[in-house]
């Protein structure tokens, strides 16, 4: 199994940390992982994206032409990454702020209304965990218990009291993800 | 043989008026006759000997006339890239906090190319000693203008005299580093007369002893002559130093810790 994922959105949405949690979960279940951010003079509100690869085998290139899954969280990222999904691959997006919805006919498309859902929760910081839940429902490459273990490893101890609310958010994500198109 | 016999007649314990410290090697000094470097070397080594610290001392030689200081001082030494001696000393002292670490630098090395390393070692308050020999000129490369060259003073790169307007004013590094909170003891000395030598030695000893207090950097400037670079006899150059260098670089303590 090798899953090549791009997560793209605004800085501050938790794009990079979502990728880290996926990687930690992969490590917990004995897989190889790779997390490659776009880096540069980016800031809160600017664009941020990260390539995540989780595999049973040694991981080759951190730079890839096309992805198994694209998780898209703003319009700029939709414009940039919709075309990079492999035919038959998966695109998951949050429609919040999206003005041009995905148009490809040869990929699976899912929506997860994470921003709207996060607003209903104790803290909107759970946004990225709701998205992660949506992804895991579609692509259960890491087990839920390993995600919680991954969360524990990636969060500094002083934030460990936040784990239950994050866990709740991941679960909520699995519930609210909707299929738009299946090929 | 006859010469030896004469020497042996003279070399007797009761005739001994001065003995070179064992911490200076027997190698002939490469400095010009009349230069102050020899005396400054001796004072530093006498201080190390009096502290009984030969095995506890690491010195840093600069680039300049004293590039070969390690040939004359019988202690472990490193020879630094031009101006970088305080960086070397910083690392050595941090890695061996109990050792005595000193740099021995000229004015081209310390006040021009090594300004950043000097200022920042002083500002961090490294517990080292900097010996700064200032003769207002680049000696080794043949008498070019240094940052310390006096206004109007001739050198091979200021053949009509240092013109402050286009070449800048001479830099008083010692006053400058005294402003920094990291310096603990800052003084300016000379080695042209016996009394000056005694005072200079006292200052150097204090600068070394201060390392044990771990209160910051001790900085000892020694205003010296360069009879070759200044194109004067040794006697004349010392007179010129007193008349011209001292008014601009006044001898005395600049920053003294409260006892």
């Amino acid at each position, binding site marked *: 199994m090798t899953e090549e994922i791009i997560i793209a959105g605004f800085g501050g949405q938790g794009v990079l940390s979502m990728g*880290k949690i996926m*990687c*930690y979960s*992969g*490590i917990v279940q004995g897989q*190889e*992982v*790779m*997390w*490659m*951010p776009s*880096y*540069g*003079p980016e800031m809160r509100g600017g664009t941020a994206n990260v390539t995540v690869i989780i595999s049973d085998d040694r*991981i*080759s*290139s*951190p*730079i*890839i*032409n096309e992805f198994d899954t694209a998780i898209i969280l703003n319009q700029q990222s939709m414009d940039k990454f919709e075309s990079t999904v492999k035919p038959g691959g998966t695109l998951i997006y949050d429609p919040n702020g999206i003005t041009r919805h995905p148009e490809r006919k040869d990929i699976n498309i899912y929506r997860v209304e994470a921003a709207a859902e996060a607003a209903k929760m104790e803290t909107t910081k759970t946004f990225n965990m709701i998205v992660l839940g949506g992804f895991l429902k579609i692509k259960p490459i890491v087990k839920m218990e390993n995600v919680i273990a991954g969360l524990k*490893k*990636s969060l500094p101890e002083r934030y460990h009291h936040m784990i239950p609310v994050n866990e709740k958010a991941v679960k909520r994500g699995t519930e609210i993800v909707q299929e738009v198109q299946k090929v | 043989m006859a010469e030896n016999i004469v020497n042996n007649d003279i070399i007797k314990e009761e005739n001994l008026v001065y003995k070179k410290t064992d911490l200076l090697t027997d190698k002939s000094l490469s400095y010009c006759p009349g230069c102050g470097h020899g005396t400054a070397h001796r004072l530093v080594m006498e201080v190390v000997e009096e502290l009984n610290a*030969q*095995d*506890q*001392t*690491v010195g*840093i*030689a600069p680039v300049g006339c004293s*590039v*070969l200081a*390690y040939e004359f*001082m*019988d*202690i*472990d*030494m*490193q*020879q*630094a*890239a031009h101006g*970088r001696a305080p*960086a*070397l*000393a*910083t*690392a*050595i002292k*941090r*890695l*061996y906090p109990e*050792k005595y670490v000193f740099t021995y630098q000229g004015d081209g090395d310390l006040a021009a190319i090594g300004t*950043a*390393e000097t*200022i*920042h070692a002083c500002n961090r308050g490294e517990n080292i000693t900097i010996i700064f020999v200032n003769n207002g000129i680049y000696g080794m490369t043949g008498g070019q203008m240094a940052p310390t060259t006096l206004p109007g003073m001739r050198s091979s790169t200021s053949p009509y005299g240092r013109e402050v307007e286009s070449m800048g004013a001479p830099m008083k590094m010692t006053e400058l580093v005294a402003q920094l909170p990291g310096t603990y003891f800052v003084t300016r000395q000379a080695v042209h007369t016996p009394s000056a030598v005694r005072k200079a030695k006292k200052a150097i000893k204090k600068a070394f002893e201060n390392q044990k207090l771990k209160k910051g950097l001790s900085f000892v400037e020694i205003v010296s002559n360069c009879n070759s670079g200044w194109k004067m006899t040794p006697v004349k150059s010392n007179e010129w130093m007193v008349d011209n260098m001292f008014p601009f670089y006044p001898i005395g303590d600049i920053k003294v810790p409260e006892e």
Partner: protein
Amino acid sequence: MKELRLMKGNEAIAEAAIRAGVDGYFGYPITPQSEVLEYLMLEKPEERTGMVVLQAESEVAAINMVYGGAGAGKMVMTSSSSPGISLKQEGITYLAGAELPCMILNVVRGGPGLGTIQPAQSDYFQAVKGGGHGDYRLIVLAPASVQEMYDFVELSFDLAFKYRNPALILSDGAIGQMMEKVEIGEQKARLTDAQVKERCPWATTGKDDNRERNIITSLDLDPNQQEIFNEKLQAKYKVIEENEVRFEEIQTEDAEYLFVAYGTSSRICQKSIQLAREKGIKVGLFRPITLFPFPVERLKELSKKVKGILSVEMSAGQMVEDVKLAVECKVPVEHYGRMGGIIPTPGEVVEALEQKFL
């Protein structure tokens, strides 16, 4: 069980340094390697092992601090990225001239000048051919993963002390910034001052009655002596070339074409192999791990059984010169690369292979 962590390449270098018992790190911030210094400052290694960590006033000061520490026999290192490594060249040639062991990390970014902060491999010549003035060589290791960033810290110090020579880890912005799984090693104790004296009898640890004074210098004004010293250096480099070559081969057994690539490029080529083989093109990868010494002999051997070699680098073509020298024109050697901080994609590399050879 060994401890596994998710780390950036830069963080792995810093943690490995603490664990290897490094005595001192001296650095100056520059993207994309500032995490090395940041991680060290956060980790308080002075409490963990007594390691000294200092943010210097410049790259020039930092490398000269390394010179001072190395001259005193301690395990010391610095890190920077391309523009900063250019500044360090003065200190590096002095270190080589004084035969001082140390580790220097270059997390390469695109140049020339201030260039870009994105990854590149355009400092190959500088790392491998000298960089500063004079006839000297560095031992150059090229990690291709975060695990290798970690592992090469100790390896580079071992080689540096074995040969009394500076060692350089030539990484790039991609490997510095990417996160991967890292197996963390045991904490090694720093050497005591007595052990340092034993390992480095030449170091300025303080002259006692048992030995002559130790002098660390690169100066000898007598050209005859300086030539003898240079011959000694060259002889040392020859021994390194004979004994320290390291490389990796991937699917070279049946390969008709060969990629030669190091670091990030070698990772891309691994994917390109997969893509090319899906198209029926039998290609393999030869990955030099030591760039100096360059794995000449093995590459020469491999060249006898392939139809063409593509050197893939994030540069205008630097390592390709060493590849050509190694294969002695027995087989066509071509270069494919991107510059200025652009990383080629695996697909592009396959296209280049097809264009040049098929």
